[in-house]
């Protein structure tokens, strides 16, 4: 039998049940104070490809451009007895892991003394997040020497700060380079291993008392990928009209993170790129060769203004576009990955766009008058047969009507 009161009671019970389940998923408590970061409480200041990638993803450009996270943290009652600190690393809820001598964690934001249950605008710089990595793990330790292949880490200031401030930005990685990032890459943004797969980094929002004991915590996971794929090899180009077909051999590293290819041209695309380059050219003279480029140096990552096309994952050819005929271009290719990292460029090939005659031009040149769009109709076409067929159809209809 229908009972409205029972129905309300059932739905109230469901709401309580679902609400508690949601909270259980969103928060982790390590003591007497609840700490939560709602999904809507995470923002990025200028994330690369914001809205197209997860807010938790970090790529090289995010690090290079000094992007930062802004968190809103919700606290439970009793917060006034604690300070809020944000650490990155492994097992940061354990005090010894925040101890400089045995640290596996590093602090990534200045400590906060909460004045209400909501802490707004807690900023965590991406570079600070990435500063404590070493060897591809999340462990922040003393510095190690870098190599050209992997880079190394410098010392990390992982001192415990129960309430006092610590300059988190001072921790940084040491020198060393990587084949997949430019030589001038900031130390925090340099990969610490040759691994190409994304890595996960845990952020610990800790409520710490005056003895650095944890009174509550929340763990937020981000993923980062700084290694871009190696460039393709065997890059060649050819002639097209205002374009340059580009061909390459995919990198033999078996990098499954490759998600596409980016083309770079010198001079840059369009009339603007040509004007900026100061290249001398004559629209009536076909150049015989391309001069060497000081922009497209293999192993570097040119500025975005030199981008002149892209190709999808799995392609071995593509088209550099918006070029000017009779101008000698150098064209290079970089691989891109699932985190939108753009790798360093390959050797540059020579391309000289020039007018070509495709099928449709040849057809029109031979006197054909077709074309002009799917909806185009010529006033000079022969409608007689069409009208005849239409008339026959009409006659059949009329004949049938008479019969009935």
């Amino acid at each position, binding site marked *: 039998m229908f009972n409205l009161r029972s129905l309300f009671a059932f739905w109230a019970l469901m709401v309580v049940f679902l609400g508690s389940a949601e909270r259980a998923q969103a928060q982790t408590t390590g003591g007497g104070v609840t700490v939560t970061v709602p999904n809507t409480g995470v923002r990025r200041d200028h994330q690369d490809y914001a809205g197209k990638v997860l807010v938790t993803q970090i790529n090289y450009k995010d690090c290079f451009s000094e992007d930062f996270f802004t968190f809103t943290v919700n606290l439970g009652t009793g917060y006034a007895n604690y300070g809020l600190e944000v650490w990155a690393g492994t097992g940061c809820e354990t005090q010894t892991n925040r101890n400089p001598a045995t640290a596996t964690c590093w602090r990534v934001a200045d400590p906060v003394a909460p004045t209400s249950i909501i802490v707004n605008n807690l900023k965590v710089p991406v570079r600070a997040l990435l500063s404590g990595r070493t060897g591809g793990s999340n462990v922040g330790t003393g510095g190690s020497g870098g190599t050209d292949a992997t880079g190394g880490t410098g010392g990390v200031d992982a001192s415990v700060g129960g309430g006092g401030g610590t300059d988190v930005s001072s921790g940084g990685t040491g020198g060393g380079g990587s084949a997949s990032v430019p030589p001038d890459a900031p130390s925090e943004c340099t990969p610490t291993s040759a691994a190409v797969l994304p890595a996960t980094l845990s952020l610990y929002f800790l409520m710490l008392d005056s003895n650095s004991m944890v009174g509550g915590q929340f763990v937020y996971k981000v993923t980062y990928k700084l290694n871009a794929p190696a460039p393709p090899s065997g890059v060649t180009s050819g002639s097209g*009209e205002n374009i340059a077909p580009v061909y390459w051999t995919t990198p033999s590293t078996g990098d499954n993170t490759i998600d596409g290819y980016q083309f770079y041209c010198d001079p840059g695309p369009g009339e603007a790129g040509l004007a900026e380059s100061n290249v001398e050219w004559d629209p009536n003279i076909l150049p015989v060769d391309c001069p060497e480029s000081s922009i497209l140096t293999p192993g570097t990552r040119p500025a975005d203004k030199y981008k002149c096309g892209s190709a999808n994952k799995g392609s071995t050819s593509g088209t550099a576009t918006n070029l000017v005929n009779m101008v000698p271009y150098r064209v290079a290719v970089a691989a891109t990955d699932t985190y939108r990292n753009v790798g360093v460029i390959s050797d540059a090939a020579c391309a000289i766009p020039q007018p070509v005659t*495709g*099928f449709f031009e040849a057809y029109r040149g031979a006197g054909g008058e077709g074309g002009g769009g799917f909806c185009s109709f010529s006033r000079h076409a022969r409608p007689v047969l069409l009208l005849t067929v239409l008339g026959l159809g009409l006659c059949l209809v009329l004949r049938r009507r008479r019969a009935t």
Partner: protein
Amino acid sequence: MKRFVLGLILGLSPVASAQAQGVDEFGAYGRIANHGESAQIGLVEARFGPYNPNVDKSVDGSPYQDTFGDSTRYMLGLEGDWQLLRIPHLGTLGPGLGWGYTRSSGYARLTSDLDKLSSEKTALTIMPVYLVAVLRADVLPREFGIPIVPYAKLGLGTAFWWSSDGGETAYAGSVKGTGISYGPQFALGGMFLLDVLDQSTARDADVSLGINNSYLFAEWYGSELDAFGSNKRLNAGANTWVVGLAIEF
């Protein structure tokens, strides 16, 4: 073109009305046929064959052959027929609607030296669509036990086509390289009744799937999609043969 299609549909409408009543001047139909077969209402074909469009027939010179060479291109297609009328001691008659797809590609030539190829791809894609009246004389297998069904098709074809250079829509001056061609279309062919090879399976297919008969077929067809002799339309039709598999249901 819309008027033409409308006219053709209107022309067929009296017959459609007759079918709805279940009776026409040839007698009743639309019910279980002889030999315990399920009702037979139509046929679908999967088609494959060479397709070299008649582009060069409507213009001076040979732009198609010069661009794409003389190697054979192929077309994939589908056709669905509605077997509207059963003509006693002859076969079925009804409208058929077909669709196909073919693409030719090659390298554009350097304008400065037409004997030399550039690295830029140029392509012509054609998607023929046609509406035909189809007569299938299945009297031979039905009344004489000969597993052959000759057939004929006549109607109008059209083709959507588009040309590209370097992966982008082609232009000649300001004229866009896309269009629609139309013209007459006919076909003559024969189907071999596969049911005779395994009658038990054929019966099962009818009982479980409603497939009355299945055929292998070969057909010669011609389509002159040049707007009835004009060079105002790219002649995207072809005179060629096609083979395929057909099932009646």
